[in-house]
């Protein structure tokens, strides 16, 4: 069933076949803390693309939900396939509004398979949180929770054997590991186009509240197959210890690569056990305006490795390593926990998703009220126009079992509509915290905090059924919410528009497989184990081993879409 790697787009492909990751190294940011955002993307057998206009016409009509207004507004993205900036909440809404006016369910009973990265809660029969949420929904959802790290194995086995649950959640990074998902998706799951396309979404107002860019990722084989879990635009930022920077009067807004280097020199003090940087090189890519993957210029696609900027970046990183401005345990082992290092002040600047910001505050604000982080405003190596990468607009997908009768599909979508209730609604509160007084109490800032029963019974389950608009909701740290929102709003205009935005492309597997070995060679250069002059040779090897083949594949996509 595997098509040969590097297969070109077919007519069917043009009509809207699938494809998972548009050319995005950064899309991997969704993988979570355990992997770096530009990590390898296991290739799929086929390699296909879906056209931009087709995707948009399949999406449900976007109608914002009027019930909840964030304290700091976000930015609605009109860039195809690129997520916008969600708003920010600095306080928890005093009285959460009900998002639905009538029961979502009609008494049906459904099994839902979801991933979980955390302790498994007691089952439905012994779990008052599940019972309360199901009562509010008006239907029975029984979860089949599966270990998030081996989710793909189980998902593949169930898809292959036809043993499909009523509702099945599959993260995008797992889908990319499934060679024949394009075919499996049609055999296993119900086509949701007749229920959701355009104005048909009206019975599900909270699904209509999901961004169009996210829906565009839910299309396979020219059909709307899943409810998407929206993401936020930026895979990472350069976070720094604001409290230490202010105390020492360091430069909190470097304007070019040289200022960043000088900052590193100033901060690093090995005797005082302090180094300027953790692993920052993926952010240094953006500083040198290296394209996220391809750049289209002069009628030709140029891969990031082939750009002169990439070589400049390698030279810069090599200098940081050579002059030991990067923490030695980051240099020596991939497993160094940079969050511990920055929390302890052993490094002062590192690259992380914006989520790392909140996690560090949770860990350290309690003991150290001055503890603060911020993100460097984006800048370019030459002081010119900055550039920033973007995520794919959806990270997880919720599918409905094929052959489900129409009224059941409608009930399931209605349940997913309930699950899509945004921050600040009653439904959101119930699905995230359980019942007030029983599973949670409010702290002095009115924020729900789980009690013992809540910690035992409440687990992210309904949360994975579909998605909801993303907000910066760290209401415990209003200062950080403001800083985060300011950074996102200031950064959004600099999001790189790639040649393939809005087209969904499944990378040829041979090309995907090239990434790690090639970047290992570049790492050797950064670490000073190979001379910078070897770049030419490494790029030649990359072209020979599949780079040129991939270029032809991507050129064809551009031509097929009238962009070249």
């Amino acid at each position, binding site marked *: 069933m595997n098509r040969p790697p590097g297969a070109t787009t077919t007519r069917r492909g043009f009509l809207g076949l699938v494809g998972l990751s548009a050319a995005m190294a950064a899309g991997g*940011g*969704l*993988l*979570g*803390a*355990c992997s770096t955002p530009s990590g390898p993307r296991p290739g799929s057998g086929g390699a296909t693309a879906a056209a931009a206009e087709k995707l948009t016409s399949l999406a449900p009509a976007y109608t914002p939900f009027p019930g909840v207004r964030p304290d700091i507004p976000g930015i609605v993205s009109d860039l195809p396939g690129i997520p916008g900036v*969600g708003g920010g909440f600095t306080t928890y809404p005093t009285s959460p509004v009900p998002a639905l006016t009538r029961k979502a369910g009609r008494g049906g009973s459904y099994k839902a*398979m979801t991933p*979980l*990265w*955390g*302790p*498994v809660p*007691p*089952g439905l029969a*012994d779990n008052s949180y599940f019972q309360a949420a199901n009562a509010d929904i008006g239907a029975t959802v029984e*979860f*089949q929770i599966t*270990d998030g*790290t*081996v989710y793909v*194995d189980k998902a*593949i*086995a169930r898809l*292959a*054997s036809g*043993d499909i*649950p009523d509702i099945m959640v599959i*993260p995008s*990074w797992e889908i990319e590991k499934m060679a024949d998902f394009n075919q499996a998706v049609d055999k296993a799951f119900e086509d949701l186009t007749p229920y959701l396309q355009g104005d048909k979404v009206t019975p599900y107002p909270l699904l209509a509240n999901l961004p169009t860019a996210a829906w565009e990722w839910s299309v396979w084989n020219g059909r709307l197959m899943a409810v998407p879990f929206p*993401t*936020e635009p930026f*895979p990472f930022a350069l976070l720094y210890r604001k409290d230490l920077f202010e105390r020492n009067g360091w430069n909190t807004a470097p304007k070019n690569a040289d200022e960043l280097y000088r900052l590193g020199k100033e901060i690093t003090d090995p005797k005082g056990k302090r180094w300027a940087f953790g692993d920052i090189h993926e952010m240094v890519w953006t500083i040198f305006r290296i394209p996220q993957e391809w750049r289209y210029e002069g009628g030709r696609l140029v891969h990031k490795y082939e750009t002169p900027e990439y070589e400049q970046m390698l030279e810069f990183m090599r200098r940081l390593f050579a002059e030991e401005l990067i923490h030695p345990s980051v240099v020596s082992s991939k497993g160094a926990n940079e969050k511990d290092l920055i929390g302890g002040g052993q490094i002062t600047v590192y690259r992380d*998703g*914006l*989520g*790392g*910001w*909140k*996690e560090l505050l*949770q*860990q350290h604000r309690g003991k150290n009220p001055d503890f603060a982080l911020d993100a460097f405003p984006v800048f370019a190596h030459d002081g010119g126009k900055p550039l920033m990468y973007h*995520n794919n607009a959806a*990270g*997880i997908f919720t599918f409905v079992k094929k052959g489900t009768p129409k009224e059941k599909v409608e009930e399931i979508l209605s349940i997913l509509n309930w699950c899509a209730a945004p921050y600040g609604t009653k439904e959101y509160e119930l699905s*995230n*915290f359980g019942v007030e007084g029983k599973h*949670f109490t409010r702290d002095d800032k009115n*924020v*729900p905090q*789980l009690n013992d029963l809540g910690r*035992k019974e*409440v687990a*992210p389950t309904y*949360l994975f059924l579909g998605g909801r608009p*993303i*907000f910066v*909701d*760290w209401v415990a740290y209003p200062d950080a919410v403001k800083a*985060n929102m300011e950074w996102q709003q200031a950064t959004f205009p600099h999001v790189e528009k790639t040649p393939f935005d809005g087209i969904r492309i499944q990378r040829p597997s041979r090309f995907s497989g090239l990434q790690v070995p090639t970047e290992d060679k570049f790492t050797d250069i950064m670490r000073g184990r190979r001379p910078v002059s070897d770049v030419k040779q490494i790029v030649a090897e990359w072209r020979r081993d599949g780079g040129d083949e991939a270029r032809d594949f991507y050129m064809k996509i551009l031509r097929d879409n009238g962009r070249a």
Partner: protein
Amino acid sequence: MMTSPPWAERPGRAGGLAKGLVLTFVVAAVLFPIYMVVLTSLSTQEAVSRAGGLVTAPGELSLAAYRQLFAGGVVTRAVLVSLGVTAAGTAISLGVTVLAAYGLSRPGSLMHRPLLFLVLLTFLFGPGLIPSYLLVSSLGLVDSYWALILPTAVTAFNLVVMRSFFMSIPGEVTDSARIDGASEFRILRRIVLPMSKGVTAVIGLFYAVGYWNSFFNAVLYLNDNAKWPLQVVLRQYVLQGQSLFVGQSGTGTIPGQALPPGLAVQMAIVVVALVPVLFVYPFVQRHFTKGVIVGAVKG
């Protein structure tokens, strides 16, 4: 005076001391990590933070980690599930393996060569993930404890070890029993098995450890979380907060969700997973060498 070979001589004082030291070092190298794990699991969060990782010197002790682990009732239930699966699974596996090994060890038993060949084939070729799943699901075993036992009931390696042990029992012994009128079953039960306590204990331990550690089959075949065995449940604790994708993107992190578990809880998990095996091992240990070298000296 009789001269003994060099290796049988009593060591000198220095030699004895050196051996003692080396052995002490080896034992310490084995025990110290276990000591650290147990101690860390019993330490308070403050003691762990102060030690900056695994605790080596006892500070404030607390059972908090174990209380947290067993609070939900989920872990307790999983312990019972694992004990049950291990007991039933080991009994079934041992029974089937003994019977098969005995049959295959008798010269001239029906089709023993092709059967042995089939068994050995599974050494070389394992069924893939999907064929296994298809088989288990078409047998209706999904969501059943049998899915943890039947697919792994016989291990070719254990079968072969046991068979070669049975073959090492002199034919005269069984022949004389047969002359006395014993049936094959009686010979197996009364003659062969009592002579094979060692190998049976070892193979039983192999099976039991396998069942106790069963993880992947459980993830694959058990949809009902209440049926999960211990290892799957414990692993979820270790994963906590590790790779929630929204965590990376930040804004969508789950409010009120606990931070990753303290080191103490992680170490308590190690202890809980380890203790039963540690407990059983000494009782089987004396049979161990004997059982495992069976295949080695038999030509």
